């Protein structure tokens, strides 16, 4: 098992090299001379030459890639718009993104799994229909629209929570007040898909023979559900949460934009609008790294949850 975890950890390296190669390849799609595109049509020849020199843009393509990666890792890659190193800007914004992501993940798990279980146990009840209708709706609602509606209700109409910005550390009340709306809207999609899947997975498990056996030997329904059904039903649910991570990361970009949350997602959008290629490269690479890391974490989680899979 330990060997498996090490193997999975090492697998990150080729994936990240692949991702950086893909991003580098996409950067090569910039039509025309990259330096003059980056600096705009009015740039002087001198400025173009300096930029070419700095990024090695006039060197062969593999040298360009090597220079880009070397500069990025050693922290020398500079943003064109902000004039500081990419790494320093990203590290500055990383905390806010991680806080937002984790909070919404926690909200989603805490709400969605109980909803799904209750809906499955009380199949065809009012609660079941109502929650599953909401979930079907929830999958189709874009996160930014959820965000706008939440702002409209809680900030504009009732004036309860701030509509945008970062409130500082999560240890303070102000920090919590600011994070509630973005975290809830980001978690909405995850809640919808997770509760639907928990319900269907629970329904499948509740028909199994061992559940009938457990009931037949006179166990309380509560124990049957909590001990026998729950753990087995969670395996597909966790797979789904892993698959939904891409949506969560994409949603983070949108939520950060709606709520002016100072995270990497918003930084990436700014970088794209300014066409600041080094910053685009850095932000997307770091976000992909986080994404790969969360998926890895979920894969490792299986080791502890699913005894049927052997990792030798």
């Amino acid at each position, binding site marked *: 098992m330990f060997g498996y975890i090490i193997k999975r950890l090492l697998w990150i390296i080729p994936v990240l090299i692949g*991702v950086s190669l893909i991003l580098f390849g996409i950067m090569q799609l910039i039509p025309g001379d990259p330096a003059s595109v980056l600096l705009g049509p009015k740039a002087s020849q001198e400025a173009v030459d300096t930029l070419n020199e700095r990024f090695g843009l006039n060197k062969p393509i593999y040298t360009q890639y090597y220079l880009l990666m070397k500069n990025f890792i050693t922290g020398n890659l500079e943003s064109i718009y902000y004039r500081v190193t990419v790494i320093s800007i990203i590290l500055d914004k990383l905390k806010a993104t991680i806080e937002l992501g984790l909070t919404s993940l926690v909200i989603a798990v805490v709400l969605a799994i109980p909803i799904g279980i209750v809906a499955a146990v009380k199949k065809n009840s009012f609660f079941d229909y109502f929650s599953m209708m909401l979930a079907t709706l929830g999958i189709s609602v*874009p996160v*930014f629209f959820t965000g706008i509606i939440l702002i409209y209700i809680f900030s504009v109409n009732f004036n309860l929570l701030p509509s945008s910005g970062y409130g500082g550390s999560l240890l303070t009340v102000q920090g919590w007040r600011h994070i509630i709306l973005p975290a809830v809207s980001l978690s909405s999609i995850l809640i919808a898909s997770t509760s639907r899947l928990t319900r269907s997975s629970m329904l499948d498990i509740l028909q199994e023979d061992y559940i009938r056996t457990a009931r037949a030997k006179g166990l309380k329904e509560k124990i049957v559900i909590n001990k026998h059904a729950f753990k087995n039903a969670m395996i597909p649910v966790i797979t789904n949460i892993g698959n939904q991570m891409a*949506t969560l990361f994409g949603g983070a970009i949108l939520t950060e934009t709606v709520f002016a949350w100072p995270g990497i997602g918003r930084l990436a959008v700014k970088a794209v609008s300014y066409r600041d290629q080094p910053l*685009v490269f850095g932000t997307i690479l770091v976000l*992909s790294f986080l994404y790969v890391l969360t998926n890895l974490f979920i894969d490792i989680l299986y080791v502890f949850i699913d005894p049927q899979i052997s990792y030798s």
Partner: protein
Amino acid sequence: MKKKIIPLILLIAKIYVLYNNWIVKNKFWNSLQIKIATVFSIFVLILLLLIVFKPDIFSYFKQKEILYKSYREFIKNKGGVAGTIMIFIIIYLALCAPFVAPFEPDEIDYANMSASAPNLTHPMGTDDFGRDILSRVIYGSRVALGVAFASVFLNAFIGISLGLIAGFYGGKVDNLVMRLVETWNSIPFILLALAIIAALGKDIINVIIAVGLTGLINFARITRSSVLSVKEKEYVNAAKALGSSDFRVIKNHILPNVVSPIIVIGTLRIGQAILLVASLSFLGLGVQPPLSSWGTMLKRGQEYLIQAPWISMFSGLAIIITVMSFNLLGDALRDALDPKQID
């Protein structure tokens, strides 16, 4: 007779709309948009006439056993039926926008400048320039559907080709292609679209390319696994032994087996693509103004949320209804086309 009432009402409504546009407003063949609307209207008109006066033309489909069984399975699913009806309405609105929308999308109503609330002339209100929201939502459906369909076609084409190559040739090629697709997939899809747009620039064609290149893994995986499951079958070997080329084997013996999962994935992908395009437009990186798109409207709507909430509410509702219709249809198709249930 009872069954004919709905098509009859639709027919009368259609004739009224056409009379109003062709004869009263003299919109028949003036511009490309109106030409498309006219051609499509004639098509709808013929279809409605056939349904009302000659309903037995559809008996052909009833003879096709498998189609009819799928159809009966499909009809049972109320959500799927509702989704299909909604999609028909949305496609109709999109193609016939100049005939149905009460105003031009960029027409400024000087009597209702600066965001007036919903009223009788403007059922959904106007935006900050005094443009009719209802008309902009209707015109927005063309952009949404157009970009979504185009990008899903691109997506399916590339994904299916990769899946076919990986599955058919196997071995090292399979390994290489699938690792490549997996790495491609390890960049979250919005980020990948952002990177592509950062390189190519903001433009509607680039949005199609960006959305079309994300999420290839779904199509590639399903095609590959279907190919693997039929590759060793006798009829494929027989075709090969008879000297069929690879292309012919793929076209005649392998692709037909993949059609139904691809239809399901494609339908679900269209909903996702609409969401993604709206997201990109919301970020200001997708469809650019003055073209009316739902995402751009939502972005402006957020700026005027306090004074004019209707701008964002109605464009948001349009996105939700469209995406939900495609999701419902996709789910229903998955149940109906499942070969296990048809047997």
